[in-house]
């Protein structure tokens, strides 16, 4: 009975939404404004210009969200993940990994670089690198830097550090937050994106890898009081 109520409410709601959407005007939005300012942005692709320059603050916070999700997952872990104990061992997977991972790394580099003038950029590259990391993990290889905790933390944080450092450094230098000088904008964006690519790759891989350490293990988990 409850099902029918919910269902009919949803259908009505859907109808209202469709009616609302049909009444939307078409339009350019902010296309023209972006085109006007593009040469000052340091890149030639409009989406990258918006993401890393015009609305770079959003991107900064977005990396923060990624990091926060990782922090959340980290605090749920019961033990450090040990890839050598991974039991997904299949010769086909290993062969495929050996073929794919170098290509993926290359592709990640290309995607990162091409973001300045074509669709691409740090997030896309980072996603590919993260997938490469997952493939490595599934075969029992450890990611670079995971042996030393501080190095891993550095890799994870470096994108955010570059972004915040450059953005905040500009404030200390008298500009506004994230206000790149137009002649330096292109290079600063590349530096930031390089850091972001590395970090996003590691974060995404770690989000997957941490999953195996969420199960009940030999440690007994004691709840904190208060």
């Amino acid at each position, binding site marked *: 009975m409850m*099902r029918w109520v*919910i*269902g009919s409410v*949803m259908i009505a*709601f*859907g109808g209202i*939404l*469709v009616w*609302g*959407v*049909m009444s*939307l005007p*078409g*339009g*350019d*939005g*902010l*296309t023209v404004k*972006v*085109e006007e300012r593009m040469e000052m942005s340091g890149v030639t692709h*409009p*989406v990258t*210009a*918006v*993401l890393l320059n015009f*609305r770079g603050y*959003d*991107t900064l916070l*977005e990396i923060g*969200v*990624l990091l*926060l*999700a*990782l922090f*959340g*997952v980290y605090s*749920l872990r019961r033990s450090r993940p040990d890839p050598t104990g991974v039991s997904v061992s299949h010769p086909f997977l290993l062969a495929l990994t050996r073929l794919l991972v170098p290509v993926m790394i290359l592709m990640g580099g290309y995607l990162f670089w091409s973001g300045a003038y074509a669709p691409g950029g740090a*997030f896309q590259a980072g996603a590919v690198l993260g997938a490469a990391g997952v493939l490595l993990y599934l075969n029992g290889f450890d990611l670079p830097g995971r042996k030393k905790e501080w190095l891993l933390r550095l890799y994870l944080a470096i994108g955010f550090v570059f972004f915040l450092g450059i953005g905040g450094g500009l404030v200390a230098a008298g500009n506004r937050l994230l206000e790149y000088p137009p002649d330096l904008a292109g290079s600063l964006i590349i530096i930031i994106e390089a850091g972001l690519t590395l970090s996003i790759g590691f974060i995404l891989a770690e*989000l997957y890898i*941490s*999953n195996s350490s*969420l*199960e*009940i293990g030999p440690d007994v988990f004691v709840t904190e009081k208060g």
Partner: protein
Amino acid sequence: MNVMYLYAVVAVLLFVIGLHGVIAYSHLLRKIVALNIMGSGTFLLLVSIAYGRPEGGPDPVPHAMVLTGIVVAVSATAFGLALVRRLYSETGKPYLPNGDTEKSGR
């Protein structure tokens, strides 16, 4: 312009389907997937808005919004899944415990 409305309508329907899923299903994985469908609906709407004039390019701002939105959605989903996994390993059930919202937690 007509193409935009087709995608927009589909987007909104996806949103409603996702909303229905979150409310109606009690299995946690289904809820999370439904939330993602809601997100996809919103993103699709944003992309369809970006359509713009046929001769000019698309509006880049909604594209940037979608990129940011996807990253946020992925982060939240990853965290949510880890929570579900951990809860499952403690309780053995992929459902939220019932009826404890009005009771004392300790």
